[in-house]
Every structure is written in structure tokens, then in C-alpha cells.
């Protein structure tokens, strides 16, 4: 390969002769021309909004009103005052986000890992199972929400029918949390399962063979080979799953509409309603920065936890 592409002596001379002209020297602006279309999008819809959003959060900003008075950190102060209307709404929503995240993440890690372990072997039909478990994830939350609203219907739903229950899954607590978590597990289990499966397949076989030679049983092999081998993938999966759960919106919007009494209205749901329905954009922006702060802390904790475990 390299023989074919490396020029011989004669061509090298010719190349040296022409290298001063267009063939070798790239116009210095060429790379920027390659980058320009993306960077325009990036500047307008990524960099600008980060700054603009913070600027908005410092104002009483209603899109429909001409005057947008500067209030400094007033919006933030309101949020941290639980007796204010915005503050109490916001912390109710943060609580809902927290409950959902804490309840869903362990299941969204544990069950996909179990499924990935079951599928991690060479056997016929493995790709069919993988395709089936992954299938719900390619459907949007709108379809998923519809189907489960029907299945969870308190009067005619299959779930109550087959379980012999009479539960109002979309309006009662804690049933609504069970429903929201369960639907989310059904919808996204396949995603983490295929990522774990890819991680399992990257663990070298020799490690298992060596452990077997050392007399390690299945459980010891799992603890000393599989878990450490999955570490890189796990950091990513745990972090991404926490972020996804903390940004849960569609399930709540479609299944419970935040009921009962906004107890299942998540933070991002409240932010969207406050900013994009009621056009109280200053308050909504300040909420989004506080939520973002929590999310970034959560990510930092995950990375720190995995790093510590690596050192030990």
C-alpha cells in the first residue's frame, strides 16, 4: 500500500518542483471555508443562546411585552424563596425530577445490564432478540405515551385487567410514579442494553480464560473481569441515563399531564410551560440555569465516583 502511494525518486523531484504552487499549498482560508457552515449554526443556535439565556434570566422578560426590566438576580432570588409562587412551583418540580431520577436510574442500569449479560454469547437468534428489545426505543415518546395511556387506562386498560387491579395509574400517587418509571424502562431498556452488550464484547476472551485457569467461578469472573471491563462504558451509561431521566418530559406530559396537583410535573416540563406557554421567559431561564447546575453537579459526581473506584 505504502509502496504504491509513496512516490518514487522521479516523481518526488517533480513534486518538489511543483510544491510551491497550488498542488501542495492549501489556501490558508480553505479550512475555515470547510468549517464555516457548521460554525454559523453553532454560533447562532448554541453559543449565542447560552449567553442570551443567561441575559434573559436577569430580566423580567415577557415576549409579548415591550418593556423587559432588568432585575439582576431577582429571578434567582425568587426561586430560592420557597414562599414565592415561582419558588414553590419550581421546587415541587425539582422534587418530581428527583423522585423520577432516583426511582428510574437503578432500573435503567440494572435491567439492561442483565439483558446484555443474557445476550452476551454466541447463539442463534441473538440479533433477533437484540432487535426486539431495542425496537420500542426507535418509536417516539408520542407513540409510547399513547399506547401506554391506553394500556394503563384505569377502566379498560390491559394492565389492570391482567393484574386484577383497579388502580388509576395516571392520576394517583404513587401509582403514577410506577407507571412513569415502568413505561420509561420499557421504552429505553434496549438502548442501554445494546451499549452494555457492545461493552461486553470488547472484553478480551483471554481475561476470562485466565480467570478460569486461576479457578475463578462464574461469580468471581463477573466481579473481577466483567465489571472492571465494563467500567469505561458504565461511566458513560450512568451519566447519560441520569441526564435523560432528569430531563424526562414526554412521559409526564402525555401520561399524567403532571397530575395529581403537579406532583409529577418535572422541572423541564415546568420550564417549558413557564417560558414557552406563559411567556415568563426570565423566570424560565433562571429555572433552566439552576436545573443545569444540578445536572452538571450530578455528572461531576458520577465521573468522580468512577475515578475513585479506578484508583482503589
Amino acid at each position: 500500500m505504502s509502496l504504491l502511494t509513496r512516490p518514487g525518486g522521479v516523481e518526488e523531484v517533480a513534486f518538489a518542483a511543483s510544491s510551491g504552487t497550488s498542488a501542495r499549498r492549501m489556501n490558508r482560508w480553505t479550512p475555515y471555508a470547510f468549517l464555516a457552515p457548521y460554525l454559523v449554526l453553532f454560533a447562532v443556535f448554541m453559543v449565542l443562546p447560552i449567553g442570551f439565556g443567561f441575559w434573559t434570566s436577569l430580566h423580567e422578560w415577557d415576549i409579548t411585552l415591550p418593556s423587559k426590566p432588568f432585575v439582576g438576580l431577582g429571578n434567582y432570588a425568587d426561586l430560592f424563596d420557597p414562599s414565592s409562587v415561582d419558588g414553590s412551583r419550581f421546587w415541587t418540580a425539582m422534587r418530581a425530577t428527583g423522585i423520577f431520577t432516583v426511582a428510574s436510574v437503578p432500573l435503567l442500569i440494572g435491567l439492561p445490564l442483565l439483558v446484555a449479560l443474557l445476550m452476551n454469547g454466541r447463539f442463534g437468534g441473538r440479533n433477533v432478540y437484540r432487535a426486539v428489545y431495542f425496537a420500542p426505543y426507535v418509536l417516539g415518546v408520542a407513540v409510547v405515551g399513547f399506547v401506554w395511556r391506553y394500556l394503563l387506562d384505569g377502566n379498560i386498560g390491559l394492565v389492570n385487567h391482567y393484574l386484577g387491579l383497579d388502580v388509576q395509574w395516571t392520576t394517583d400517587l404513587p401509582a403514577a410514579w410506577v407507571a412513569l418509571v415502568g413505561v420509561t424502562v420499557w421504552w429505553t431498556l434496549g438502548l442501554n442494553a445494546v451499549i452494555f452488550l457492545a461493552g461486553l464484547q470488547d472484553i478480551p476472551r483471554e481475561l476470562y480464560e485466565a480467570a478460569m485457569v486461576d479457578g475463578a467461578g462464574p461469580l468471581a469472573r463477573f466481579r473481577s473481569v466483567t465489571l472492571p471491563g465494563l467500567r469505561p462504558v458504565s461511566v458513560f451509561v450512568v451519566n447519560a441515563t441520569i441526564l435523560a431521566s432528569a430531563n424526562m418530559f414526554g412521559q409526564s406530559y402525555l401520561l399524567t399531564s403532571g397530575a395529581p396537583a403537579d406532583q409529577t410535573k418535572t422541572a423541564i416540563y415546568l420550564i417549558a410551560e413557564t417560558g414557552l406557554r406563559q411567556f415568563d421567559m426570565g423566570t424560565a431561564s433562571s429555572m433552566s440555569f439552576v436545573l443545569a447546575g444540578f445536572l452538571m453537579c450530578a455528572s461531576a459526581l458520577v465521573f468522580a465516583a468512577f475515578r475513585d473506584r479506578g484508583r482503589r
Partner: protein
Amino acid sequence: MSAPSAVRVRRALLHLVLAVVAALYISPLVYMVTTSFKTREGAGSTTPQWIPSPATTGAYREILDSADSPIMTWFANSLIAATGHAVLVLATAAPAAYALARLSFRGRSTIFTVVVATLFVPPVVLLVPNFLIVNELAWVDSLPAVIVPAAAGAFGVFFLRQFFLTLPAELEEAAELDGCNRWQIFTTIALPLAKPALVTLFLLSFLTNWNDFLWPIYVLLSPDALTLPAGLGNFQSANTIRYDLLMAGAVIASVPVILLYLVAQRWVIEGISRSGLKG
């Protein structure tokens, strides 16, 4: 193999478990499809009907005829938006990723660092300001609002750059010696070699956009401007009891992505599991 029969029993058990779970797993979707062929009474029956009796296409005819829910318009909007978005992502991310992977220029590492850093910015902070920006551009209630802003995400650039870095540089060097300019090298050598990554990115971008829910329901307002998920969201609040209609709508929204998934299943799964995209 000391005990081949034990191995065989274990394998059969594994298959049994996986098959039973798979059947349970897929059953909600089966029920969605069968319900879409039920009558209004059949869909509202308190005893489960796995096979619709009588079977009818009435629900489909009713939602296709309904004036308040122009579902075929929503379908066309979704198709235009998802295709347009995926094309825009490829058209902007591929040259940018190529420049960051292969060309040397001042500011390269700074630009790359800034772009990658935004992968760690929680997207929720973009929600309100992007609405304001889209409003300034007079895009609210029109398709550019759901096509363009999300293409600013760093994922495509990051993903394609990783792929370009794995390609052997020799072919490009040879083309350079043949007198090709950078653009020619990019379009005739690098892009064809990157086809698997481009196809994966196209599929992921298409699926994400087709299924997007939060942004379209707030940024699209009039009935003729909606995408399918946004339209169905409204449709649900107006038709909570008509599950036959809801399921027919859900089937219509699922068919394109399910077809795409069946055709390109391997690329979708490999792409997601290797790149670690989170929806």
C-alpha cells in the same frame, strides 16, 4: 465438554427466557396495531380483544377524513423536517469534521475544544433563548424551526471527526500529489470512505428529529404546521376516549421509523451502541 446435555439444557432455558420476555416486550405494539383495526366499541371494551372482531379500517378512514387533524399534512411535515434536518446535519458536520480531523490551521484545537465542550452543556438552557431566536427569525410555526436549530449540536461533528481520524491518510496524500485540491480530496476520497458513518449519522438524525416532541409542541402552533408527534399530542387531549383513533394515529406515526428500523436495524444499533448517542 464434560456435560454436553447440561450445556444444551442451559441454552434452551436461556432461549425460553429471552423468547418469553421478547414476546411480552413486543405485545404492547401488537396491541396498538390490532386496536387500530377495531371499532370504537371494540377499542373501549373492558375485556381484552387481541384479534379485532369485527375488524375494520374505520378508524383510519375517520382520522384521515377529519378536518381538525390533517394527519397526512403532519406526516408530510415530519418527512420534510426529518429529511431536511438529517441532510443539514451531514452537509454542515461532514466538512467541519473533515477540517478538524485532517487540515492543520490556526485555532483548530481551540475550535474543537469549544465545540466538544458544548456536549456537556445541558440542553435545557437552550430552550428559552432558542425560542426567542427562532421568533426573531420569524420561524415560529414553520418548519425551519424544527429543522435548523438542532443541527448546531456538536454530536455530528464529534462523531464524524472520530471516523475521519480512523481512515488511512495515504489515499488522500496520493490524491494530493495528483493535483487534487482539498475540496476534491474531501468529496472524491474521504466522503466515499466515510459512507458507513454518514449513513449512521443520517439515520440517527432522521430518527431523533422524527420523534422529537418537546420542541415541536411549543414552537409549532397552527394545525397545518405541526409534525406528527406534535399533532398527535393535541389530538390525544381532544380524543381521550377514542382509543381506536389514537392507536390508528400511533400506527401511522410508527410505520416510517419501523420500516427504517427493519431495513437498517444493524446500522442503527451499531451506530448507537458504538457512538453512545443518548436520545
